[in-house]
């Protein structure tokens, strides 16, 4: 399923918040269809890194090339990239004043200029895939956390993105709801979507990831296939991290 075409390339990418060096010399190449799980302690720069991919955060030096488009200050390019990159957030960030269906059709109608009827059909199709078509008329505030996150995934998929970014999609959920969201993500992975997931769900990583990346202090410390990553970590920092999250 993994082709050799590159979906995302980061070359010597650096980012600072003021004087604070958040991301240091990030080099990462993600092939089309590849599923990558990024983990690491909090404050290690994982979220910042994936937020650079759709330019929610700006990088200062180095290159980021997404789908062959290099991210610069050029707003047109940023819009082009954002059209092709979907994102799910830790706190879902659904639009509370719109119904579930309207949340899903907003992007297709206003960014892709799709007719309303067609956008609604597409949206219902994706809501069915995340198994909540019956909630289409409700407002986000009336749904449970797990349902909201599934709507958020459907909302991103409605834009038919080539790449999906997940920024700790299950961290704000009750344990019982984590599974329903992970199931949807596993299904998506099995369909060949290019995915970058910041998550601490190690079961998910083992099941779907092609590569696991461990970050600390703004650097990529280790990257490997999940089997070797979990069973045979090379770096001491990785070993300590894994012993802590698996040990408890």
């Amino acid at each position: 399923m993994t082709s050799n075409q590159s979906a995302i390339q980061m070359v010597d990418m650096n980012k600072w918040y003021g004087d604070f060096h958040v991301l240091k010399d990030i080099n990462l190449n993600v092939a089309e269809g590849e599923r990558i799980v990024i983990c690491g302690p909090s404050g290690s720069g994982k979220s910042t890194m994936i937020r650079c991919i759709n330019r929610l955060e700006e990088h200062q030096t180095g290159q980021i090339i997404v789908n062959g488009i290099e991210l610069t200050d050029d707003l047109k390019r940023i819009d082009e990239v954002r059209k092709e990159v979907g994102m799910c957030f830790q706190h879902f960030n659904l639009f509370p004043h719109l119904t579930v269906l309207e949340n899903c059709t907003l992007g297709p109608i206003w960014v892709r200029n799709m007719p309303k009827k067609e956008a609604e059909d597409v949206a219902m199709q994706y809501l069915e895939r995340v198994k909540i078509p019956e909630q289409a008329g409700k407002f986000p505030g009336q749904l449970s956390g797990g349902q909201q996150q599934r709507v958020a995934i459907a909302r991103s998929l409605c834009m038919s993105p080539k790449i999906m970014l997940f920024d700790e999609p299950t961290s704000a959920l009750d344990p019982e709801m984590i599974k329903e969201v992970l199931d949807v993500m596993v299904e998506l992975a099995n369909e060949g979507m290019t995915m970058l997931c910041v998550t601490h769900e190690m079961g998910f990583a083992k099941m779907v990831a092609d590569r696991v990346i461990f970050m600390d202090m703004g650097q990529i410390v280790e990257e490997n296939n999940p089997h070797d990553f979990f069973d045979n970590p090379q770096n001491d920092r990785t070993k300590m991290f894994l012993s802590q999250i698996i040990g408890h």
Partner: protein
Amino acid sequence: MNDFKALPDLPAPNATRGLVGWFKANLFPSPVNSVVSLIAIYFIITFLAPVVDWVLISAVWTGEGNAACAEATGACWIFIADRLPIFFYGIYPPDQYWRLDVCFILLVLSFGPQFFDKFPYKGPVAIFSLTAFPVISFFLISGGSFGLEHVPTEKWGGLSLTLLLAYVGIVAALPIGIVLALGRRSEMPVIRSFCIGFIELWRGVPLISVLFMASVMLPLFLPDGMNFDKLLRALIGITMFQSAYMAEVIRGGLQAIPSGQYEAASAMGLGYWKQMRLVILPQALKLVIPGIVNTFIALFKDTTLVLIIGLLDVLALVQAAIEDPVWKAVETEGYVFAAFCFWLFCFSMSRYSQKLERKLHTGHKR
């Protein structure tokens, strides 16, 4: 084994239902509450009774002229009835009153439906009331074309002038306020400084001095021969002043929107204006409905200040009528009537805003 049998429904005890139940639950639930209720009822009756007597029972409703009120201990409402055309139309030529009538009917027709949930054509009616209605009204009231006699703005007055000032102020201040609020949060330094300067300048001066400036000072600075209408100047002054307030109210709403909403909208590929229009402003404006309506109500009442630059709004005409020696001792009636006019419109706005808030409520936020 016994068969399960549902017990029949019994009516609730008498003491918890109907009027008796309501009294018991709300007025006399405990000894202390009962005492408080009784004291409150006593005061309401002592103070309300004379008011009701004055307004309704002893009031004079029929008759001709001041003499009919000479013996009365209550309100002299025939004074109001006698002067009602003046209060409403001001010194507009009486044979042209129908033009103001048409405008007023259009106003009621275009805003009335917003109070009814079931009314099907709210959208088109709202667009009409914001676009076609002001244009039609302007040509009707001002005249000078379509075979209508021209009525200069000096002759506009009364409640119709109050409504006109308030309508233009409200309809213009909201969009200008939105633009200023967005500008003040802009990342472009020139736009941001301009908006901050504009807002702080207008907010820092009293409306009364703005009106003075507009009517007395401005003509001094304008080149000879260039002069524009006093009413127009007052309108611009009021609009600028209120949009500065409006901008700050709306900015409060914008700041309450979590950054995640901006991020989700950006990640979707929506540009700045679409983000604002589709995601941020609908939420921000909904949050600050109470503040917006507060500003509207303040604006409505502030229109009385045009009195000091010689425009005759309803309050000015009431004052003039009170001083007219034809009617004696009618101050209270006049001011009660003026107060009632203002209260009626302000209260309607307040009710409408509450209705809007309920309608736009979409369950708990995240």
